[in-house]
């Protein structure tokens, strides 16, 4: 399976995103801080931190979200891995993964040196001792990273950073412009109105997608009392599950392989569903008439962190990669290709101000209003102490039941 990727018309898409993004910021109160909790729920195993840079090992094994480590094989113009190899002498072996669960699982094998972990993977990796604390003094441009991304509950424990912030963004709603009319503005298009596109709806194949349903319920059914889509008690989880079971009747297929989603939209087997900006980019490159929007309810999203394996066989090359990928130039390239806000604000000088404005790169208030993927645990992340919340194991169980 090969895909050709075109130079990406990011700015156009970004401008469109900015337009709808404005509507998505209302009502999502005090979120960023609400989604903490997890940090204090456990004590990470004692793993030594690297103190100084040694000689590079000649290669590095990188585990990344699709589009985070492009070497020009998808598009000759999209390549920031080759300059890294030339600068450091570390040959990069890249493996892409489709879900956070897959990333956690692959990191346990010990075959990878660095991983781009989202918030629903990072703490699990810290707790299981699969990643080591990161010595930020060894990261060249660490002081340029936006301060509101540092020392957050999903990338640090007890004030110790376990990674370097990479970038953040929102999960979007994509639809075929020629088949979905009128253009949707709400997640309701894939929940309450999903039967309009019976057998043509797609959704992300991971238990974490339950949070998307919870977010929708949070806005549409206030009496359920959901204040954080990752802190659901049993009753709230049941409501989200029942919503997703209704959606299941209209699903064409669930996706976790991003190329499979592109193909499903291309053939028209899927016409509406959740997506990432990069998928819209690839689909648009294949001349598929699609558009991705940020619906009025806001969205779940990700804030990714480069973490180093506690069993890294190439620790120096791993640090070299983390140091490289957070510099302004590669940051601007990844951000524009993947369609997300770079963690390093200096990248704006290279992407152009319009891009950074569209993605709210230095806008802490906006960043706080995306519900970042976080691992649900039994201690409620929204601060409730009078009830027990459902943990990720229960979500995984529920996800199997939803698919039936």
């Amino acid at each position, binding site marked *: 399976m090969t895909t050709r990727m075109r130079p990406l018309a990011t700015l156009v898409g970004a401008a469109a995103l900015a337009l709808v993004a404005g509507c998505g910021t209302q009502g999502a109160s005090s979120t960023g801080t609400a989604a903490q909790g997890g940090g204090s729920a456990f004590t990470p195993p004692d793993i030594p931190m690297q103190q100084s840079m040694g000689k590079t090992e000649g290669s590095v094994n990188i585990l990344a979200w699709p589009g985070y480590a492009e070497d020009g094989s998808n598009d000759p113009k999209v390549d920031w891995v080759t300059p890294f190899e030339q600068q450091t002498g570390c040959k990069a072996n890249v493996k892409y993964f489709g879900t956070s669960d897959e990333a956690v*699982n692959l990191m346990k094998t010990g075959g990878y040196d660095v991983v781009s972990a989202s918030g629903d993977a990072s703490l699990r990796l810290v707790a299981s001792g699969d990643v080591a604390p990161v010595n930020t003094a060894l990261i060249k441009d660490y002081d340029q990273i936006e301060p509101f991304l540092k020392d957050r509950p999903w990338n640090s424990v007890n004030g110790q950073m376990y990674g370097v912030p990479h970038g953040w963004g929102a999960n979007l709603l994509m639809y075929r412009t020629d088949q979905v009319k009128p253009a949707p503005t709400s997640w309701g298009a894939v929940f309450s109105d999903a039967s309009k596109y019976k057998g043509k709806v797609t959704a992300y194949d991971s238990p974490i997608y339950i949070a998307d349903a919870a977010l929708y319920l949070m806005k549409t059914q206030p009496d359920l009392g959901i204040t954080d889509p990752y802190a659901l008690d049993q009753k709230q989880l049941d409501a989200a599950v029942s919503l997703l079971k209704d959606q299941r009747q209209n699903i*064409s297929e669930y996706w976790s392989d991003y190329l499979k989603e592109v193909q499903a939209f291309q*053939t028209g087997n899927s016409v509406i569903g959740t997506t990432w900006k990069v998928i819209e980019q690839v689909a648009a490159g294949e001349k598929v008439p699609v558009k991705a929007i940020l619906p009025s309810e806001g969205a779940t999203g990700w804030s990714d962190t480069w973490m180093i394996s506690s069993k890294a066989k190439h620790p120096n090359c791993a640090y070299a990669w983390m140091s490289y990928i957070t510099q302004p130039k590669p940051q601007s390239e990844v951000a524009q290709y993947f369609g997300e806000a770079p963690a390093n604000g200096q990248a704006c000088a290279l992407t152009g101000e319009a891009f950074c404005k569209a993605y709210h790169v230095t806008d802490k208030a906006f960043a706080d209003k995306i519900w970042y993927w976080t691992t649900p645990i039994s201690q409620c992340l929204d601060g409730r102490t009078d009830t027990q919340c459902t943990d990720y194991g229960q979500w*995984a169980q529920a996800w199997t*039941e939803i698919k039936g």
Partner: protein
Amino acid sequence: MAFSVRRSPGLRTGLLLLPPMLWLGVAYLLALGALFVTSLWSQNDFTGAIERIWTLDNYRQIWEIPVYRTIAVRTIALAALVTVVDALVAFPIALYMAKFASPRGRRLLVIAVLMPLWASYLVKAYAWRGIFADGGLIDWLGKPFGIHSPGYGLLATGVTLAYLWLPYMVLPVFAGLERVPDSLVEASGDLGAGALTTLRRVVLPMAFPALVAGSIFTFSLSLGDYIAVTIVGGPTQLLGNVIYENVGAANNLPFAAALSTIPVVVMFLYLAAARRTGALDNL
């Protein structure tokens, strides 16, 4: 040493059999044993670490949570259906190959039946993905008659599996039919039986063990398949991909191990039943 080996036929046979026996004993039975042991452990939901405390929780969950029963029944029913479809399609082909085709035609037919095995499984599964796609082959052919592709789902999975495993049914049935002596067929005709009666009363009973032998392949392969369903199955869940997701995505090895005992038990019962028909002597 070499001398004594040559002298003792028992030892020689033993040494010859040692590698395959090791393969069966260590690699296969031990792996099955390890699987069973793992299924009695549990997993920490947060860190994903395996906790080595004996528990029957995994089996209790499979028994008590209805979705797993639904998935198991769906998988077994699909495997049975694929087997029946393959038997119905394979029997006429095998009969023609064994009894009617010229030697040259027979060779060509054997090649034709085996030909799909030359292509990769994945290529064939993705080919069916294209056939069932919107605007794919089915849509295109059915357009004049108002027929629309059923899309990805259980039906597409069934068709794909039936296609994939057909050679495994044709070959044993062909071998079985070849062993039915022509004289018996002629005798049946001489005694006044029509073609259909001969087929039903003479050929079919003699070919039945061969059909069962073929069904062991199609049934077990369908029962364990997890790739075709992820390609053409849409949101359908079968035992294979639920096990795969528990290993590959959720990293819950103990639960996956507990789930995999379902196909093991089903196959065990199936083989026990097949043995009674004498099909195992036919492989």
